[in-house]
């Protein structure tokens, strides 16, 4: 049999690895055919809404629900007293702490859930919320973590013993009632010794402000308890549906097989939808109590005020170097404001996430990191907003320290980076704080980036601009922002990564249909990443069937294999690897079937794009479609019928994507308005699955980086009132504020990942924040700036210029 189609055409027809295949999800999303939690409508469904605390710290003297219950259409008003008999008035957090589901005697942050109203529709529920009378006694509010550690005011009375002693927390000894943990990595004494004796030392204190992932779709759930068959179905905005099922089972006592958790379409997560929120628990309890489905969907203000924030790290650093600029040591201390409950979403052994990647892309011989977690009267959280467990904080820290060291050395910051990069031949490289970097080629990427933007030319232009400014010819200064980042993603190896004891493997299950199409299900869940597009591409290349013929399903715990979900750029490194491995199992069986059909020995056939061919006889082959049909319809001695595979993948290591970013910015020193003239982003995410999807991810991540660097924050006043609870004040950039992005790449495959892929969705955020911030700070470097804190909104930029005497 002679094939009419060329090999190149067969490869193209697969739409596999490396193809900029259009996203299959978009036909649905662009036509309003998505199915989100709030689209779910069930017969008889009731609606829940929260009474929330207006105070940041107060004792609750009484709650009167009579007027609310009297309102027609109100079915129930739940308070902590109602949840207590079920043991659900508190719930465990992912960080080993516990959190009130409904206020138990006191409130600890503004917007905290106090009572849950259940009513016939959302309007009645909202009216009933107004009718619940709560009598508060205001308590002293603490919004500053440093003051919190000195204060006599105990925020968490539940964490102090009756005799006044302070029991250990989930991460060891606590030194104050408002202290959560101390976590250390590296060698402090050795680090101090190096720094104390160094030729050059640079120091900086920086506050990485509190912000919020703010996905377009807020959080919500629909719980439906079927009292006849004892099954609970829970739809919700879950980045980790399988974990939610396990936690729901452990909390409720309902056996896990009787719980079905479904993540339908999710409108962005960015870490905000990893944790478990009181609304989920209350919708479940309300459905159990009422026997009908109950929906809870929060509004924008509730999302910003009460669900998981990100960052809020006070970082203090010291970096030492030789006179020539070779870094000799790094010391970092973080005071981490976790708010009222420690609800960080980090692997159990890492209460400060992967902050210990803070040596960055540099060969630093000795380092120390210490982190103290602190309670304050702010919303709980501390999630990884478009990053892998505090990597954004770590990269910001080191990329600022490099800039400050460059100032101290009076050296070009690009050159300082080059001097200190981990060299290509040093990989795999074990960093001073313990991580083993799998691969990298930093210098090549850096050189490519600097050449692309004509770095030397930019510096010359900047120098001219400084002179022009001094002569009074312009009121605009020019900044060149640099960042070189290394991420640590793909959590992670079960030996050191778990959440609530659940190992962070992931999974893929493939079923090939007789006619040669397939369905694959994974333990992850797309929130906009395009899994249905890209996972099909991985499989297409592995099993030789077109991506167009492969359906990807995720998010339904009744059908998908168990997995830990999507966050921390883990989908491609872990579930993507599981997909490749499951595909290889399919191929192994297909090889035996092909050999049988071609009447040769198994080892005499080899895989070629979409078929097995007899070695050396390319005209003798069986296509994967033929093999699939035979798998079901032909009795093959020694083989079971069917063509299915499942793989649970426990990654041997994390992956380490990296990138080189440059931002050119012009800043009006009088208005504080920055204009981004140019943004160049080179990413190395290893093997590139879909270049178009990668580019989209980079655009999105950079835009969220721009937001955080230039204005996005959750700010509190001294009374613990949230000052930025609406999109008027919380900066969510639109197309108008977004500059043009130039993207570029190098490819350094991961040596341990089955297809060499590393993950990319979060890189642009991680690398972008320091790049934007460095651009602002670099503009003021010639005028004496060392470090100013983000967010660099207009007035703060103006303040920087003002402090430097530029308005005199």
């Amino acid at each position: 049999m002679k094939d009419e189609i060329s090999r190149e055409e067969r490869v193209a027809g697969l739409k596999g690895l490396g193809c900029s295949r259009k996203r299959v999800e978009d036909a649905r999303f662009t036509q309003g055919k998505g199915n989100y939690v709030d689209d779910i409508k069930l017969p008889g469904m009731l609606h829940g809404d929260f009474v929330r605390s207006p105070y940041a710290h107060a004792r609750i003297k009484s709650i009167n629900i009579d007027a609310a219950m009297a309102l027609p259409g109100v079915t129930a008003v739940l308070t902590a007293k109602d949840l207590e008999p079920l043991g659900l008035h508190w719930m465990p957090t992912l960080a080993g702490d516990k959190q009130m589901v409904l206020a138990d005697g006191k409130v600890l942050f503004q917007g905290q859930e106090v009572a849950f109203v259940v009513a016939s529709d959302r309007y009645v529920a909202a009216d009933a919320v107004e009718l619940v009378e709560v009598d508060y006694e205001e308590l002293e509010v603490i919004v500053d973590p440093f003051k919190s550690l000195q204060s006599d005011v105990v925020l968490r009375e539940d964490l102090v013993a009756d005799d006044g002693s302070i029991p250990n927390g989930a991460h060891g000894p606590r030194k104050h009632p408002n202290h959560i943990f101390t976590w250390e990595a590296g060698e402090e004494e050795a680090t101090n010794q190096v720094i104390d004796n160094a030729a050059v030392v640079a120091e900086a204190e920086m506050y990485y402000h509190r912000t919020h992932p703010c996905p377009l779709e807020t959080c919500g759930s629909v719980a439906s308890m079927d009292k006849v068959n004892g099954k609970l179905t829970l739809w919700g905005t879950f980045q980790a549906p399988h974990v939610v099922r396990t936690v729901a089972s452990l909390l409720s006592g309902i056996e896990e097989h009787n719980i079905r958790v479904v993540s339908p379409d999710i409108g962005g997560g960015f870490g905000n939808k990893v944790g478990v929120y009181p609304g989920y628990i209350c919708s479940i309890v309300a459905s159990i109590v009422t026997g009908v489905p109950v929906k809870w969907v929060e509004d924008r203000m509730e999302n910003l005020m009460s669900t998981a924030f990100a960052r809020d790290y006070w970082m203090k650093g010291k970096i030492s170097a030789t006179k020539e600029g070779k870094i000799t040591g790094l010391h970092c201390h973080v005071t981490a404001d976790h708010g009222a409950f420690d609800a960080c979403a980090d692997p159990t052994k890492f209460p400060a996430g992967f902050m210990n990647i803070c040596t960055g892309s540099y060969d630093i011989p000795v380092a120390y990191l210490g982190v103290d977690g602190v309670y304050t009267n702010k919303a709980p959280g501390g999630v990884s907003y478009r990053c892998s467990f505090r990597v954004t904080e770590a990269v910001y820290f080191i990329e600022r320290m490099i800039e400050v060291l460059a100032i101290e050395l009076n050296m070009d910051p690009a050159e300082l980076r080059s001097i200190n990069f981990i060299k290509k031949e040093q990989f795999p490289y074990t960093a001073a704080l313990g991580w083993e970097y799998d691969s990298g080629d930093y210098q090549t990427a850096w050189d490519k980036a600097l050449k692309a933007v004509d770095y030397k030319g930019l510096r010359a232009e900047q120098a001219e601009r400084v002179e022009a400014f001094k002569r009074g010819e312009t009121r605009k200064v020019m900044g060149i922002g640099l960042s070189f980042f290394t991420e640590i993603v793909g959590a992670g190896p079960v030996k050191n990564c778990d959440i609530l004891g659940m190992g962070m493997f992931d999974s893929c299950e493939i079923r090939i249909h007789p006619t040669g199409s397939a369905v694959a299900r994974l333990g992850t869940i797309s929130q906009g990443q395009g899994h249905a597009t890209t996972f099909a591409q991985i499989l297409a290349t592995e099993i030789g069937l077109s991506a167009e013929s492969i359906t990807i399903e995720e998010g339904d715990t009744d059908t998908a294999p168990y997995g830990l979900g999507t966050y921390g750029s883990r989908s491609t490194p872990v579930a993507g690897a599981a997909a490749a491995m499951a595909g290889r199992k399919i191929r192994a069986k297909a090889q035996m079937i092909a050999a049988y059909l071609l009447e040769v020995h198994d080892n005499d056939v080899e895989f070629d794009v979409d078929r097995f061919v007899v070695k050396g006889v390319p005209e003798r082959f069986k296509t994967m479609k033929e093999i699939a049909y035979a798998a079901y319809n032909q009795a093959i001695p020694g083989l079971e019928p069917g063509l299915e595979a499942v793989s649970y993948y426990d990654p041997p290591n994390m992956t380490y994507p990296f990138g080189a970013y440059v931002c050119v910015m012009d800043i009006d020193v009088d208005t504080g308005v920055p204009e981004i003239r140019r943004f160049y982003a080179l990413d190395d995410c290893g093997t590139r699955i879909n270049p178009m999807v990668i580019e989209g991810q980079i655009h999105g991540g950079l835009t969220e980086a721009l937001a955080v660097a230039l204005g996005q924050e959750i700010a509190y006043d001294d009374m613990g009132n949230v000052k930025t609870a609406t999109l008027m004040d919380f900066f969510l950039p639109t197309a108008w504020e977004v500059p043009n992005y130039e993207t570029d790449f190098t490819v350094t495959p991961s040596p341990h990942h089955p297809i060499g892929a590393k993950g990319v969705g979060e890189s642009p955020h991680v690398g972008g924040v320091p790049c934007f911030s460095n651009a602002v700070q670099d503009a003021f470097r010639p005028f004496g700036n060392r470090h100013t804190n983000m967010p660099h909104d207009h007035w703060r930029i103006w303040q920087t210029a003002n402090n430097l005497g530029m308005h005199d």
Partner: protein
Amino acid sequence: MIPAAFEYYRPTDMAGVIALLKEHGDDARVIAGGHSLIPMMKLRMAEVPHLIDLQAIEGLNGISIAGGTVKIGAMITQHEIINSAELEKAAPIMKEAALQIADPQVRYMGTIGGNVANGDPGNDMPGLMQCLNAQFHLVGSDGDRVVDARDFYEAAYMTDREDDEVLIAVSFAAPIGGFAYEKQKRKIGDYATAAAAVQISKEGGKVGAASIAMTNLSDTPIWSEAAGAALIGTACDEASVKAAVTAMLSDIDPTEDNRGPVAFKRHAAGIVLGRAIARAWSRA
């Protein structure tokens, strides 16, 4: 963000509107584009038991320019202001300002009447109306009256309008000379950090007349008579612009908010006004 229950009315003539206002007093509000009122209702910061929609009232959505006078019906949207060629010709500052309000979606709905009548210090049109020395046309149960824009605003959300009155139109003499509406904001859709409306006419190389109003720098718009006066008779040189800015700064009274502290706002106000004067003078 769900509003409290309210009764909705859609009368077809102004008499019907006035009757409802008279019946319900301050429990009733009229709604035009709704882009100020509806968010306030959803936040439950405004409770409006009786909401009277003006969409079906005839005669509120015209732009007329006759005898040197511009008259704009209250229901004219920002989008219509931007796209009216004759208005652009008669008062180009209207388009320049409207283009800096919110975003296209909001401008399709937001009206000039709502913008000026609500008394929100963040709105752009009140300051512009003061710059243009506009008149506001009100009808009420006691008949019609006309109020100068410069006398209309008392405090944030407090105006000279009585509860049973409706603002049906604004009018002003078509301005002569150069113009500029300069606005600094944090992002699309935001209120001004500082904004300035400037009209300048030139006579024999000198400033003949000048009118300056500032937005979102006090609890009302600020028409700074002294700032305009500082320019008159000068060549709009650096010193006189500085004098105008100094005069303006003694009229405004900004407060600290998320847009920044008072010192920054005052600085930005000066910069914004300086740029607006320069642009207006270049067009004069």
